[in-house]
């Protein structure tokens, strides 16, 4: 029986080449998208689940409360893991990771001169007890037990020494200090939230032997014993805080609390909590998941629509089979087997396509797509379930319709357009609703991205490059700056603590006098040239002068620190710009700060955030970046001139310029990815929907060939015929458009909520999206109706 079903199904599929082609292609595209997105979601979902007993491993975060303002931070003090190990029996293991890359890169000399390395961290000796990564060489317990010991990953060992066994025992220089390589560990998997090339012993750090409760710069992790009550553990940590920090808290009026975050929740958790690797917003995973389902739904709908539309053609076959004794169940089996064969075929093609596309997909999703996963029992089970589900969903409705036909009516060809026309219409509406909705969303995402890239930030980032310099060179910076300008390849040069695109340092501001409300303020340590180099606009007061700086260098207790505030800071204190000038405030350690000037607000963080209070102060000693404004003309020429001077004046540190505007654009990496992914998805959705439309129009055109021929004989033009065929579909698309506009409005609101500074969306995205889909639909219908129109009426009418 099944053999017979398969045979008939194959022959039917072969006979209707157009439908089979559309269905096969459509299902393949839908399946490829679905499988690729599933792999991506699985990858993001699988983060940090590879360690044994990962359910018992937690990252320790900190909540810092001061004056009613609280702040969540993902880092904690170096005393924490030691104290936990010693005083908490429920703590099985605790370890510390100090990610140096958030401060600066290091220079590593493995025998071939200094190279800049960014993925460098320090860990304590318990690291591999908590995270059981594989150790390829070296002896556990002796890896980080003393200062100046270093473990590298396999890849790094290969890169620096050719192979793993060569690496152990070698001595390399890190920022001039000698380190012995004590081990080689596996590379960090792509789904670990840690990613380093070098792990040095934390013993090397000044807090390594002498842990402190301040600063809170370290990532700390604990592994709790089985059955530990996490809530009880957190409240025990509160007692510990009271014991060690109670006095400080009273004196300085702050409160701190440590709390746990399951390790598997780090990657998709709160994005404001700092972590080693940028995370993924769960929101995106949900959106991608929904889109994957929508795409496969469109593919299935194409099948359903074409199969029910051609039901008329198969009336006779169904009727005959019933007359010959087939019952409904047997016929149902036959039609469902057709959809299964097609789905299975599409699945096989999809796997081939995914195999071929894998390298490109990696770039798009920024994660490696694990094809091994698809070959694992889990993956095979997933693929089988997917094929069964898609096959059943595609085949169910058409099979019910076809097998339910009454034999006499079927044989007499008395059925008009196959049953369920309204179902088909709703499905078409749904497909185009999804296509238009996705396209509108794409334009919204893109509009916000363009807005963020092109908005006037309040300073000039054009032709501005940033170069970080080593701490030792800071005393020579005035000379270096002068030399760079003298070369003609730099117009302005300033020292700064950071690029202006994302200023991070947090300080506390005490306005002083009768204004007692302190607040958090971002601090920017710069030199006197910064204001001019990045073209900040002073709305009141003036820039730092040499005499100001001399006053701040007095060490007799009368020193006065000149600062420049932004308007947001002035507003916070309830002053206007003019009256703020000359007032004294306390900024962090600078007890006697004089407000010299007020700059117009500029964006010193990504546009996700409002412009907060900012204090600019003259402290070149705390700066680590040179901001260089280069002249017009070929930038690479200027940069090579600058590199030449740099090599002479700053030996041992390569000249690695970063264009500030491209660094700024990189702040929106995740939005850029979303935009690319949305563009791709909406393109696929539209393509699938148009393919379905093409099939449906072909069917309608075939059915109405005679009518069209008669109209032609009566004098209808090509455009009239197009109108006849198009009008019904245009009505459906109109309904889709209305629904898509509603969805688009909702999406725009939802998406823009994540940005403090939003673009005006306007009507353009809606008009373009709907117009585009309509145009493509009319072209599709037009192509098909033109083919019918060109038929010779004499022939088509004769055959009747």
């Amino acid at each position, binding site marked *: *029986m099944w053999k017979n079903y398969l*045979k*008939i199904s194959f022959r039917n599929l072969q006979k209707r080449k157009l439908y089979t082609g559309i269905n096969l292609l459509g299902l393949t595209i839908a399946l490829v998208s679905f499988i690729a997105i599933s792999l991506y979601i699985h990858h993001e979902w699988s983060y940090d689940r590879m360690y044994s007993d990962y359910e018992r491993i937690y990252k320790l975060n900190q909540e810092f409360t001061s004056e009613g303002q609280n702040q969540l931070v993902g880092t904690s003090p170096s005393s924490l893991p030691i104290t936990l190990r010693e005083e908490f029996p429920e703590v099985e293991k605790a370890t510390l990771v100090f990610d140096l890359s958030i401060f600066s890169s290091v220079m590593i000399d493995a025998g071939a001169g200094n190279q800049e390395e960014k993925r460098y961290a320090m860990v304590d000796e318990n690291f591999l007890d908590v995270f059981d990564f594989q150790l390829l060489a070296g002896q556990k317990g002796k890896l980080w037990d003393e200062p100046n010991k270093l473990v590298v990953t396999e890849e790094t060992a290969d890169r620096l020494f050719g192979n793993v066994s060569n690496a152990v025992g070698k001595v390399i220089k890190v920022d001039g200090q000698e380190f012995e390589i004590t081990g080689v560990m596996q590379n960090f998997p792509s789904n670990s939230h840690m990613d380093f090339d070098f792990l040095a012993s934390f013993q090397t750090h000044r807090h390594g032997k002498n842990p402190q409760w301040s600063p809170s710069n370290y990532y700390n992790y604990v592994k709790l014993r089985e059955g530990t009550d996490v809530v009880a553990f957190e409240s025990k940590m509160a007692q510990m805080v009271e014991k060690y920090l109670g006095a400080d808290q009273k004196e300085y009026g702050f409160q701190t609390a440590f709390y746990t975050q399951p390790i598997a929740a780090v990657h998709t958790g709160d994005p404001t909590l700092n972590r080693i690797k940028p995370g993924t917003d769960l929101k995106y995973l949900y959106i991608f998941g929904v889109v994957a389902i929508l795409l496969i739904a469109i593919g299935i709908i194409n099948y359903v629509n074409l199969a029910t539309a051609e039901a008329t053609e198969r009336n006779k076959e169904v009727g*005959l089979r019933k007359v010959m*004794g087939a019952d409904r169940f*047997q016929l149902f089996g036959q039609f469902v087997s057709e959809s299964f064969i097609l789905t299975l075929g599409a699945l096989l093609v999809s796997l081939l396509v995914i195999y071929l596309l894998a390298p490109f997909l990696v770039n798009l999703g920024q994660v490696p797509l694990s094809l091994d996963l698809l070959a694992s029992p889990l993956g095979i089970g997933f693929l089988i379930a997917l094929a069964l589900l898609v096959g059943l969903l595609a085949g169910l409705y058409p099979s019910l319709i076809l097998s339910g036909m009454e034999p*006499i009516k079927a*044989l007499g060809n008395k059925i008009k357009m196959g049953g369920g026309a309204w179902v088909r219409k709703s499905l078409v509406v749904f497909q185009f609703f999804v296509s238009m909705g996705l396209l509108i969303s794409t334009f919204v995402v893109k509009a916000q991205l363009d807005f963020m890239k092109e908005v006037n930030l309040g300073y000039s980032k054009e032709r501005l490059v940033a170069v970080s310099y080593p701490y030792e060179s800071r005393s020579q910076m005035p000379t270096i700056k002068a030399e760079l300008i003298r070369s003609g390849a730099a117009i302005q040069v300033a020292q700064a603590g950071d690029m202006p695109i994302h200023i991070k340092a947090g300080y506390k501001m005490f306005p002083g006098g009768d204004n007692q409300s302190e607040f958090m303020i971002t601090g920017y340590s710069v030199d006197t040239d910064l204001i001019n180099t990045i073209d900040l606009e002073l709305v009141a007061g003036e820039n730092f002068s040499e005499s100001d700086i001399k006053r701040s260098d007095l060490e007799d207790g009368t020193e006065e620190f000149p600062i420049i505030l932004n308007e947001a800071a002035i507003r916070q204190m309830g002053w206007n710009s003019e009256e703020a000038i000359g007032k004294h405030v306390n900024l962090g350690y600078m007890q006697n700060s004089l407000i010299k000037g007020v700059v117009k607000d500029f964006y010193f963080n990504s546009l996700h955030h409002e412009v907060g209070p900012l204090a600019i102060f003259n402290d070149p000693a705390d700066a680590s970046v040179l901001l260089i404004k280069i002249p017009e003309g070929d930038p690479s020429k200027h940069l090579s001139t600058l590199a030449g001077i740099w090599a002479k004046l700053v030996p041992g540190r390569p000249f690695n310029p970063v264009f500030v505007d491209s660094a700024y654009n990189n702040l929106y990496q995740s939005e850029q990815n979303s935009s690319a992914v949305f563009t791709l998805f909406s393109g696929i959705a539209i393509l699938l929907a148009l393919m379905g439309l093409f099939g449906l129009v072909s069917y309608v055109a075939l059915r109405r060939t005679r009518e069209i021929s008669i109209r032609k004989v009566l004098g209808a033009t090509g455009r009239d015929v197009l109108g006849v065929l198009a009008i019904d579909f245009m009505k459906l698309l109109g309904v889709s458009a209305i629904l898509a506009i509603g969805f688009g409005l909702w999406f725009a609101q939802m998406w823009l909520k994540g940005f403090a500074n939003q673009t005006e969306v306007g009507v353009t995205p809606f008009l373009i999206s709907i117009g585009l889909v309509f145009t493509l639909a009319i072209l599709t219908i037009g192509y098909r109706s033109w083919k019918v129109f060109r038929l010779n009426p004499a022939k088509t009418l004769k055959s009747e």
Partner: protein
Amino acid sequence: MIELKNIDKYIESRFQRIFILKGVNLSIQEGEFITLMGPSGAGKSTLLNILGLLDEDYAGEYFFGERNILNMKEKERSNLHKSEFGYIFQAYHLIDELTVYENIETPLLYRNVSSAERKSIIAELLDRFKMVAKKDLFPAQLSGGQQQLVGIARAIAGRPRVLLADEPTGNLHSGQAKEIMEVFKELHAEGTTIIQATHARENADYGTRLINLVDGRIESDERI
């Protein structure tokens, strides 16, 4: 064997009922070869469909053997339909996608006949109708007469007791028609009950009983 009592079949239109069959009473014995004649629209096909359980939308009573069809469960009716009736159509109605062999095989598949048995039944039929050489051809590659032979082979493959034929020779020229009618005669001689609808008087001569239908009524019913 078959007993129809006061069968009415009508279509409701806006102002009146249009009767296709009206007050038809008919008794058919096993082994009869009945010919239904009458002008187009007299109700021949409708009567055949009702007899063959393809149409259940009528008033009146239908007994098959001792049993009233209308009192049967769906499943029983379906089994009766499968086991007792074979159908032959004017337009042959073979399945275009299937070969001669597969067309004949189809009703056997729906009757869950075992593979070995299917093979022997089909071999016998192909042999009988001299179609062995054509078993792998598709319907489109056959002449009309050959197609109808396949249609007959398919109809009798399940060994039905009643064969229903609606204008079986309507699309054939006289030579082919004669061949088909000879086959019917043979089948009748073997004991099959045959009911055919036809326009051609000469076909009736092969049968044992001639019924004339006019406007949905039986006008005459005679033995030949």
